C-alpha cells in the first residue's frame, strides 16, 4: 500500500514538471476558509521540487521501513504506516500551499501527525522526547508564526505568495526586521538556534521516521517555509540590511551545531546536530539574498535531503544488524557491512560538500552567491563548517573500515534496507552529475 501510494504520488507530481518549467502555475482553490482567506494550492518551482523530494524519498523509505519495522519487531505497525503517509501528505501540502494560511495549516498538521511517530515506542523516554518535540514546535509556531502571519495580513491585506513579495511598501525598518524575526523563529522546523532542541529530542523515534521526517519532510518543510517567506512574502527588493542579523544567527547555528555534533557519541544525535547545522546553510543562503545563493539554498534542500537520508538509513541498518547506536562501538563494522558504509561515505562526502556528491553542487552555488554579494562572513562560516563536517564524519568512516573490531557475527541488514540506502546514495551521486532538473527549478524560483 505504502509503496503503491508513494509511486502514484511521485508520478502525479512528476507530471507537473514540464508545465511548471514552462512558466505555468497550476492553481487550485480548495475553498474559502474565512472571508478573504482561502485555502489554495499552487504549484511553483520551489514547491514542486520539495514535493518531488518528499514523494520520491517516501517511496525509498517505504521500502526501507518494511525491512526495519519487521527486522526490529516493532509494534503498532499499521498506525505507523498510516501516520507516516499522513505526514508525507502534510509535507506535500506545505510544498504546494498557495498562501501563508494554507502553509500554516499543513505545517501544524505535520507537527501533530508526526507526534505519534516520535512517541512510537510509548515509553517514558519517548514521552519526554515527544513533549520536547511538540512543545518547542507548537510554542514557536503559536507564539511567533501566528502573530507574524496576522501582522502580515493586517499590514498588506493578503496572505498570497507573490513573486516580488507582498510586504514591500507595507513594512520597513524595525517593523520588517521584527516580522522577519517572528517568521525565522516561528518556523521552528528550520531549527535555527535556539529553537533547535526539538530535533535531537525527536531522535527517540524509530529510524525510518528520523530518516524521512527529520532529515527530509519535517525539517525541509521548515527551511522551505523560510525560503518561501523570504522570496514570496518579503521579496528580493526588500534590501539585504533587514536580513543581516539572520545571517548572523544562521551562521552561529552552523558552527555551534557542528561543534555539538563533533562532541556527540550517539550516532543519531550526531546526525541530528549535523542536520541542525546544514539547515542553517539554507537559511543563510536565503538570507544572503542573491539569485545565485537562492539557487544554492534550493539545491541544498535537495542535496541535503538525499545525503542525510542515506546517513540515517545507514544508522538504522547498523542498529538493526548489529544493535549499535554509539559512534565508539563502530570499530570494524564497515568490513561486515560494506554496502552500508560505502553509502554512508557518500552521504558524508555530500555533507562535507566534496565531489562527487550532491552537496558540492549546492555549496558551489551558495559560495558563488556569497562571493557575488561580497558576503565575507558567510564565506568564512561555510569554510569553517566544512572543516568541522569533515571532522565529525570522516572518523566514523575511518573507524568502520580501518579499525580492528571485536569479532562479531552479523552481516548486512535485511535486503530492503540495503537496497534503499544504496538507492539514496546513488541519488546523491547522480545529483552531482545530472543537476539539470533541480537546477532548472531552482533558477526559476521567485520569477
Amino acid at each position: 500500500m505504502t509503496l503503491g501510494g508513494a509511486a502514484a504520488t511521485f508520478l502525479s507530481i512528476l507530471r507537473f514538471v514540464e508545465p511548471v518549467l514552462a512558466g505555468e502555475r497550476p492553481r487550485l482553490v480548495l475553498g474559502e476558509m474565512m472571508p478573504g482567506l482561502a485555502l489554495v494550492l499552487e504549484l511553483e518551482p520551489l514547491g514542486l521540487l520539495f514535493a518531488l523530494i518528499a514523494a520520491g524519498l517516501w517511496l525509498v523509505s517505504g521500502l526501507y521501513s518494511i525491512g526495519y519495522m519487521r527486522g526490529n519487531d516493532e509494534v503498532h505497525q499499521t498506525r505507523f504506516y498510516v501516520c507516516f503517509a499522513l505526514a508525507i501528505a502534510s509535507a506535500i501540502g506545505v510544498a504546494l500551499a498557495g498562501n501563508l494560511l494554507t502553509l500554516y495549516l499543513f505545517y501544524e498538521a505535520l507537527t501533530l501527525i508526526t507526534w505519534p511517530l516520535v512517541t512510537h515506542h510509548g515509553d517514558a523516554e519517548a514521552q519526554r522526547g515527544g513533549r520536547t518535540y511538540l512543545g518547542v514546535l507548537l510554542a514557536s509556531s503559536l507564539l511567533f508564526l501566528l502573530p507574524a502571519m496576522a501582522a502580515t495580513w493586517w499590514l498588506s491585506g493578503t496572505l498570497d505568495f507573490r513573486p516580488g513579495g507582498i510586504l514591500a511598501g507595507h513594512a520597513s525598518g524595525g517593523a520588517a526586521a521584527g516580522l522577519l524575526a517572528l517568521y525565522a523563529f516561528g518556523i521552528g522546523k528550520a531549527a535555527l538556534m535556539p529553537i533547535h532542541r526539538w530535533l535531537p529530542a525527536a531522535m527517540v523515534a524509530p529510524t525510518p521516521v528520523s530518516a524521512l521526517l527529520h532529515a527530509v519532510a519535517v525539517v525541509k518543510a521548515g527551511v522551505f517555509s523560510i525560503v518561501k517567506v523570504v522570496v514570496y512574502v518579503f521579496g528580493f527588493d526588500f534590501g539585504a540590511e533587514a536580513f543581516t542579523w539572520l545571517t548572523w544567527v544562521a551562521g552561529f547555528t552552523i558552527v555551534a551545531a557542528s561543534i555539538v555534533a563533533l562532541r556527540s557519541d550517539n550516532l543519531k544525535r550526531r546526525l541530528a546536530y549535523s542536520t541542525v547545522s546544514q539547515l542553517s546553510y539554507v537559511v543563510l543562503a536565503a538570507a544572503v539574498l542573491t539569485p545565485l545563493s537562492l539557487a544554492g539554498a534550493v539545491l541544498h534542500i535537495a542535496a541535503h535531503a538525499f545525503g542525510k537520508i542515506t546517513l540515517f538509513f545507514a544508522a538504522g541498518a547498523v542498529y538493526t544488524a548489529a544493535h549499535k547506536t554509539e559512534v565508539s562501538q563502530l570499530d570494524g563494522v564497515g568490513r561486515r557491512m560494506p554496502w552500508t558504509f560505502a553509502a554512508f561515505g557518500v552521504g558524508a562526502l555530500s555533507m562535507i560538500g566534496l565531489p562527487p556528491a550532491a552537496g558540492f553542487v549546492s555549496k558551489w552555488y551558495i559560495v558563488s552567491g556569497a562571493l557575488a554579494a561580497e558576503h565575507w562572513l558567510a564565506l568564512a562560516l561555510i569554510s569553517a563548517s566544512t572543516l568541522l563536517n569533515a571532522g565529525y564524519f570522516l572518523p566514523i568512516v575511518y573507524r568502520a573500515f580501518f579499525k580492528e573490531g571485536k569479532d562479531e557475527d552479523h552481516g548486512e541488514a535485511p535486503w530492503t534496507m540495503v537496497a534503499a540506502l544504496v538507492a539514496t546514495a546513488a541519488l546523491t551521486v547522480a545529483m552531482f552529475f545530472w543537476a539539470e532538473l533541480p537546477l532548472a527549478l531552482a533558477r526559476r524560483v521567485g520569477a
Partner: protein
Amino acid sequence: MLEHLAALQVVLPLVAAPLIVLVRSRPFAWLATTAVSYLCLLCSVALAWRVASAGPISYALGAWPPPWGIEYRVDALSAFVLVAVSLTASFVAPYAYRSIAAEVTRDRQYLVYAMYCLALAGLLGIAITGDAFNLFVFLEISSLASYVLVAVGPRRQALVAAYQYMLMGTVGATFYVIGVGLLYLMTGTLNLVDMAERLRAVEDVRPLLAALAFITVGIGLKLALFPLHQWLPNAYAYAPTMATAFLAATATKVSAYVLLRYYFTVFDPLPLFDRLPTRELFVALSMAAMVIGSLVAVFERDVKRLFAYSSVAQIGYITLGIGIDNQASLTGSIAHLLNHGVAKGAVFLLLGGVALRAGSAALTLEHLAGLGRRMPLTAFGLMLAGLSLIGVPGTAGFVTKWYLVVGALERGWWWVVAAIVASSFIAVGYVWRVVEAAYLRAPASPIRVEAPPAMMAAGASMAALCVYFGFDTAFNVGGAADAATLLLRGLR
C-alpha cells in the same frame, strides 16, 4: 403561523417541562425533551434565515405593541445565539437518556428532564427577548433550573457545588435587577431599544454609571468572568454529565450575549465609557482569565475540573473581544460563543462516556490511561476538541483566535496578542496531559468498549463540528460578522 415562530421558540420547552412533571414517565420525558430540542433548532434556524434575508423580527407578545408590551426581538446577534444554544441542545438531548440513567437515581430522572427543558426555555428566552425585565425573568428561570441540574449530580459534593453556584448566581441576578431598576427610573421604559433611545436624553449620567457597574458585575458573575468564576469549576465537575455539557456550552455564552446586548445596544452611544474604564477592565480581566485559567488547568488533577478551568480561560477570549471593541475582535468574540460551545460540549459529552465505562463519576487522568486503545473514537474526539481549544488551524478555535489577534493588531496592542498566543500555548499543556494519558499510558484493562451508540454519536458529532467550523466558516464567522456589524452600528 410563521410569525409566531419567535414565541414558539420559548413556549415549546416551557410547556414541555410541566408536561414531563405531570406524566412522570422516563421514556416520555426523554422523547418530549428530544422532540422539543429538535423543534427549537428548527425554529431558530428558520428565524436566523428570516433575519438574514429580511432583517430583524419584532414580535409583540400578546399583541401588546412595544414599548408597552413585551417585545421579542430577533436580530443577527440573537439569531446566532439562538442557533448556538438549540444546536447544543439537539446534541445533548439524545445523549441524555443513557447518561441520566447512569448518573441520577431513578425517581428523580423525570425531574432532570423537566429542569433541562426549563433551562433551555430560559436561555432561549434571554436571547430572544427585547425587554430588560423579561430578560431577568428568563435569567432566573434558567439559573434556578441550572442549580437543580447541578444539585442532582452523582457525587455528594454536588450539593455544595450547587449551593455555591446558587449563592453567586443570586447575587449576580440581584445586581442585574438593581441595574435594570436604575435604568427604569431614569427612562421609564423596560424595552431595550426604547431604553437606548431615551437614555440619550438623560442628562445626569451618575445613575447610569451605577447601572452599568451593577449590570457588569451581575452578569460578570453569571458569565464566570475572572475573578468572579469561583462557582464554575465545582458546578461543572459535580453536575451530571449532560448538564455539564449543556451548561458549559450554553449558559455562560448566553450571559456573554446579555453583556454584548447591554454594552452595544443600550449603553453604546452614551459618554459612559470615558468615565468608567470598562474597556481596559475587560482587557485586563480577560487576559488574566486566559493566562491564569489555563495555568490552573495545567495543574488540575480532576479531568472535569481541568476542562472547567479551561472554560474560564476560554470565556476570557469572549470578553477580550468586547474589550478590544472593533469589528474583527467582536466577530471573534461572537464566533467563539459557538466555537467554544461546540468544543467544550464535545469534551464533556465524551468524558461522560468515559465516566460511564470507568464506572466512576470522578475522572482523574488515571481513568483516561490507554483510552486510545480502549475507546479509540472517544479518545480521538477528545483530541480534536482539545485541538480546537488550543486553536490549531483547521479547527473552530483557530478562527476565533485569528480574529482576536487581527483585532488586537488593529488597535496596535502587541501585548494583547502576546497574551492570546501565550494562553493558547498553555492550553497545549493541559490538552496534552489528556492526550498523553490517552495514548501513551498503558490501559488498566485491555477491553475495548466504546460508549453506548447514542452517547458516542452525540459526542463524536460535536467533535466533528469543531473541525467543520474550522474549515467552513460561513455560519460561525458569517453570522458573527453580521452580528458584530450590527452591534457596532447600534440598533439605530
